[in-house]
């Protein structure tokens, strides 16, 4: 049996990476939930759950800004 041509190997490998990336993005879209994250000087960050007081207020404030921005202006 003859070995596969080198360009076939390369194409298969690139296709494999593309499939992996597509699957990762699909999983990310499904699994990702709303979050509120704050960052401070020095790189420190903190997450606030939606059911916490601060988190709830952040989601309300963000929702108002999203409303102001409206739908996407460009296609």
């Amino acid at each position, binding site marked *: 049996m003859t070995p596969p041509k080198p360009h076939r190997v390369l194409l298969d490998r690139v296709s494999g990476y593309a499939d992996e990336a597509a699957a990762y993005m699909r999983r*990310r879209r499904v699994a990702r939930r709303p979050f509120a994250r*704050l960052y401070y000087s020095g790189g420190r960050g903190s997450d606030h759950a939606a059911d916490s007081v601060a988190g709830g207020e952040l989601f309300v404030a963000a929702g108002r800004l999203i409303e*102001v921005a409206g739908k996407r202006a460009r296609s």
Partner: protein
Amino acid sequence: MAQTATTTIQEARARDTVGILAEMPDATTDAVSGGAAEGALAYLTEMSPDLRGGAILDSTGSVLAASDHADRWSEDARVLLEVADRAGDEPVQQVHVATEQGEVFAMRHDGLTAIAVTDRFALASLLFFDMRSVLRDLARGGDGRAGEAAS
């Protein structure tokens, strides 16, 4: 080889550093014109295909540029930053809130604030990078397009 005493070098460094800092212009937001801010916002919109709208505010919270409804951007951005500041024990530098309807980014830098609303799943690190470069250039008296020359 002649060597300079370490203390001498440190004194010189301290003296020169003070001189450098004295020559640097203050990062005052008073110098930022509305025209420059509008140009910067347009540039940010151009660079970020996911962007739905945004605003740039000065240190008092007044809108320098907004994609639309400047008064509402001012009010709602103020509320968001107040809430974010209350959530921690120090003023917040960056805010990222992701909801089902879209994502909100806010960044404070050199006395200026940039707010951006994007579609879901925008690349946060890229957007924050762009916002920072725009604000930094505006604070230096530029038009926010310093990144354009570098790219």
